[in-house]
């Protein structure tokens, strides 16, 4: 089989890169051969952060520079990301999974199904508990909604159970997972879902 391609989108600072850092050890432990593509505006900031982290060989982290609107390169014209994923599959035969992190955006970004087989949208409690109620396309259409930094809820006046209930409601019961990526909480649940939905192992 070719590698599964999984998108990770969400607002700036919600924890997309932190989620990748947190899930890479789980993937390694499960024997899932992984590579990553990051998207930034005009730098390789996120890719450099992951390379410095040392959880993957540096050559397994590719950077795409969107230039401007970050969701254009994951939705309207994902050519650059498709080319990067194809290159990773050529360079690393037997790859199981390619994680594609979008550039930080607002609540409107979605991934083209031409680019990914599954995508998740990452928000965080510090962004406000009204985010699910705003029903952005990212919130509504993602295969998985991740609510990160759950541990900050009491410090920012957020009723976490209510926020999760509202997220479930606007998504019609599709998956919502609360995480604290920095402390590896909830991350195993994301891997379980990926194994079931796209890795099939």
């Amino acid at each position, binding site marked *: 089989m070719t590698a599964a391609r999984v998108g990770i989108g969400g607002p700036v600072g919600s924890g997309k890169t932190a989620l990748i850092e947190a899930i890479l050890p789980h993937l390694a432990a499960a024997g899932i051969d992984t590579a990553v593509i990051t998207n930034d505006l005009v730098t390789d900031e996120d890719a450099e952060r992951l390379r410095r982290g040392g959880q993957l060989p540096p050559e397994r982290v590719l950077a795409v520079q969107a230039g401007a609107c970050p969701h254009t390169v994951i*939705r309207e014209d994902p050519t650059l990301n498709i080319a990067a994923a194809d290159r990773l599959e050529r360079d690393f035969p037997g790859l199981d999974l390619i994680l594609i992190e979008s550039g930080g955006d607002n609540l409107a970004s979605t991934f083209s*199904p*031409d680019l*990914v*087989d599954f995508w998740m949208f990452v928000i965080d409690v510090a962004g406000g508990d009204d985010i699910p109620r705003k029903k952005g396309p990212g919130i509504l259409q993602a295969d998985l909604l991740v609510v990160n930094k759950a541990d900050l809820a009491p410090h920012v006046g957020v009723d976490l159970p209510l926020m999760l209930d509202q997220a479930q409601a606007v998504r019609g019961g599709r998956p919502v997972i609360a995480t604290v990526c920095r402390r590896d909480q909830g991350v195993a649940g994301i891997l379980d879902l990926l194994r079931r939905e*796209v890795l*099939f192992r």
Partner: protein
Amino acid sequence: MTGEPLMLLSVLGHAGDRDWHDRLHAMEHLGQVEVLAIPEAEAARKRMRVRSDRGRDCAIALSRDQSLSDGAVLYCDDRLAIVARVDGAARLRLTPASVDDALRLGHWCGNLHWKVVFLPGAMQVVLEGPVQRYLDRLRDLHGLADFTVEAPHDP
């Protein structure tokens, strides 16, 4: 992971092809054909987990150069065939009154990142959610451009 899905790794052919048509027709009489219903908006995906019309757990994992289409045959042996049924999405037909209105309308729909199909003098918006969500956004444009909206219909 509980339970192993039936892996479907390639498109073997198309139900409309003569050889497949005859073979599937015979198998249908024996109750050996199962259908995977896939929404049009999802059909571009290469991987998905889906249940057949008889509840069979299936995992599609196509190569990047293959694609799902209505009638794609994904599995066939002596006792079972599995065929994809890609359901056409509902669409809104938008017809601008003039070129100026068409420019406004096209810019508006592009700004909303809607998926559209261009027709002579009109365009169809492929609905990926409730129709009211789309009508709400068009309501704001009515004061700026003259156009008509036809209710969703099958493509």
